[in-house]
């Protein structure tokens, strides 16, 4: 089952990745090959098998809710591409 360019464009949109027409063409070809390869999983009998998302037998790790020192505003904002006062600055979300 090969992917179509419009599917790849849709996935790029979902992933918020701007892709050039050349990239869409290349990814359509490469992702089709990879998806074809991973399709071999369909032949594995998995009825009644519980999905395994995590290997450690750890559940609900709790700790005390204690206040501890944190980053200052300046430290937290030091890497911001754009800053306004004590805030991250972004383009207008609403017109």
């Amino acid at each position: 089952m090969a992917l179509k360019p419009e599917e790849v464009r849709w996935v790029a949109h979902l992933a918020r990745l701007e892709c050039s027409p050349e990239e869409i063409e290349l990814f359509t070809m490469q992702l089709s090959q990879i998806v074809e390869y991973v399709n071999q999983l369909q032949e594995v009998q998995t009825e009644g098998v519980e999905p395994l998302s995590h290997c450690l037998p750890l559940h609900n790790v709790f700790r005390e809710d204690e206040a501890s020192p944190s980053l200052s505003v300046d430290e937290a904002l030091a890497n911001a591409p754009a800053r306004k006062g004590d805030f991250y600055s972004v383009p207008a979300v609403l017109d």
Partner: protein
Amino acid sequence: MELIEHSSRELLAWLERGEVKAEELTSAYLQAIRQREAKVRAFVHLDEASALEQARRVDDKRRRGQPLGKLAGLPVAIKDVLCTKGVPTTCCSKILRNFIPPYDAHVISRLKEEDAVLIGKTNMDEFAMGSSTENSAFQITRNPWDLERTPGGSSGGSAAAVAACEVPLSIGSDTGGSIRQPASLCGIVGLKPTYGRVSRFGLVAFASSLDQVGPFGHDTYDVALLMEVIAGHDRRDSTSAPEPVPPYRQTLDQPVLPLRIGVAREYFGEGLDAEVEQAVREALQVYRRLGATIQEVSLPHSRYAIATYYIVATAEASSNLARYDGVHYGYRAQRFDNMIHMYSRTRGEGFGAEVKRRIMLGTYVLSRGYYEAYYLKALKVRRLIKEDFDKAFAECDVVAGPTSPTPAFRIGEKVADPLAMYLSDIYTISCNLAGIAGISIPCGFTRNGLPIGLQLLAPPFAEEKLLRIARMYERETDWHLRRPVVPA
């Protein structure tokens, strides 16, 4: 052997006896870096002044008789995927080119507490996605044994730096083989700890259920030493395990007997280079001579490991890498029409091709209509892969095989064919899916002088036994003592 070619075992003894000063040792490595980096290009960030300053502080402490850490005066290189306070941490991505973390990763804090000399940050595949370090946005790292070949990846810079004797020890990360495969291709020792053994706090996330930080060195003593420092519980990573950390070096020289070594037919299949197979079979003979029982075990689902991995890892990556949106840190596109366009253009311009491919694949397998067919299916096969190992470890202490199906491949050889690149991780990937421990140790060279690695896989939290078993072979052989001649 020159000073810089020694293992930490000798270096520590000389430092302790005052026969060499930390500053002299760091200077010697910095000189090697100046001579060899033009060819090897393992480092993306180097601060000579800071390294010498750290070394002098260790010498001062020693002179004053103050207590010293386990790594006192030993230089360590760090894969650029671990956050270092005040020092650039880029993941070798354009999107993080100017990122300077405001805090240290847990592993970095531990290295500092034990008086290591942090010498610099090493090259890697962008966001640890790759098997050759060619996906770095900044530079190509070359294999010190053959400069036309890759050092493997994704921790290729850390592996090449140790192999080239630019540093005695280094740190990498392993999500599908990114420590063991470059260790194998560079002729050094690399350990992927059990999932949860080392805190991931401050490790830039790729696939959170698979990522582990681990050590590189010339021999098992080196990695045992680093494991004593970096392993252990950290409350800032809720998946870090509370199991106590054994003093790995104390028991390292104690052989494990009786010893049962499992050999999986699935690890000697099609695509395995004949010279690699021969070296691994000879290594098994060494164990047999030492009294081990070699027995066949079955890992029937390992043939599905790569397919499973490229669904699970990319799904997790597509979620983890959603944070790079040009708002909080990192690169932001200059021109855009609105907020959403700022996200997509920032990401389109900031990520390299392999990272985009994996985000796309991960987004695809999680999207409506495909989630059950791909992601959920892969999680079920993941359980079957883990259960294969549970059954195997009921019959044997370790599973042995080749680390990589081939020795180091040529730069550029697999760049245009992502699937061929993925298949080079065929023997390392199931270890991450099963959350177990694995090590690669040198076990020979090809006729062309390229290193070959033996992989040993062990049950969760059996690193102490794994290191002793690896050491048994190391004592009988001298592959780990060979050093490449890097042309100046």
